């Protein structure tokens, strides 16, 4: 997946949780929890959704790396790359 595809996927998944908000308003360094008003359960559900769609492992200790759109995109990209390297 390209960064643009990952970013779009994350926004799509947030949209399922916060359907009333416009994903286009998100900027890379915004805290997703703040701009989309995600509470603890919403964020946990976002992690579940990212895991379901990408199959990457996201340990709880890494949750804070996914708070921004840029951070989440980079995290998913690196996790996909390292799982691809392992299966190669």
């Amino acid at each position, binding site marked *: 997946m390209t960064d643009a595809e990952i970013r779009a996927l994350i926004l799509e998944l947030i949209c399922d949780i916060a359907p*009333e908000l416009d994903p286009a308003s998100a900027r890379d360094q915004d805290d997703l929890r703040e701009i989309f*008003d995600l509470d*603890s*359960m919403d964020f946990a559900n976002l992690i579940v959704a990212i895991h379901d769609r990408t199959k990457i492992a996201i340990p709880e*200790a890494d949750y804070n790396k996914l708070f921004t759109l840029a951070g989440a995109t980079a995290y998913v990209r690196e996790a996909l790359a390292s799982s691809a390297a392992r299966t190669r």
Partner: protein
Amino acid sequence: MNDFKMPALGADMEAGTLVEWLVKPGDRVKSGDVIAVVETQKGAIEVEVFAEGVVSDILIPVGERVPVGTVLAQIDGAGVAPLPVEPAIVAPKPAPQALAEAPPKPTVAPQVSRRKITPAARRRAVALSLDLETIVKGTGVEGSIRLADVEAAASVARPAPPLTRRGLDLSQMRQAIAAAMSRSKREIPHYYLAETVDLHLSLTWLEAFNADRPPIERILPAVLFLKAAALALREQSKLNGAYENGVFLPAAGIHVGWAIALRGGGLIAPAIRDTDKKTLVELMAAMRDLVERARRGNLRSSELTSPTITVTSVGDRGAESVTGVIYPPQVAIVGFGRVATRPWAVEGRVESRPLVTVSLAADHRVTDGHIGGLYLAAVARLLQEPEKL
């Protein structure tokens, strides 16, 4: 013959609008089935029937607003159990008309399956006067109808007759909250207590619990709070029940109303039945399910009428402490603030520890601060033994 009536779904509900029938005359129903959808100030609620038999007559058509207690339909059936008035509360002995611990089983999935529609899609459909039935296939999760589906359908569909508004009206929700909270502050002599609890053991245990589980099986700290709050009620049962007509009615079970903030504003606290008897994993699933259904407008009537106490947890972006207002006719509300790392004295040394402020607001007509203090001490103690929760 049993009368199926407009239920009272909140402290100050006077009337509701019938927005959907999920059965027709001749249909067989059993206790726990969702047979109608009623619009209240708190949005659309699915109403269950607590009788078994055949629907013989539907008396109120869709779109009509009727007072609480109005007969909506009649259920004809042999061996019908008497309709419970309010399942959760048991009148004190020796009251002759003591209400039986009643049979609703909210955990039983309703027979009638309804289409999932996101709130935004529902609002847009109403705005466009679009009949959602015209959308054959939703593209969202499990075929749910999303905003995009509505827009797509609207671009091809002819305008349908206006729908009865089913989505949540925030000004109505605000009025419902205002009415219940005003009544609470007018009638209930609240007293307030708080206790700071060290969560080091709880969170260390939880971290290990979550570490080797996939995301869907992980548990939030709020689940530990909920379970501890419920178990502590076993020790202080006078905080669990209802105060009505000058008497405290202790509840037979512990059905915690879990406060859920709705997106865009508003609050609702549906019950998690037998909270004290559920495992942490079950509670997490129940909580996830309730949040989702509360936001979608798929809560059931029994979930709104059966809470015996309310617990609110503000989560990781909330304030450091919260002191609640009791939801009548309940007699207590427990509040958990944001977990914050702070200096804490441990065996004569200052250490950095995750702390939470637990508060209790309780009804002075039923208990005093002594009972309340024992309750908070029990919650604090239970959170030091997370493996037993």
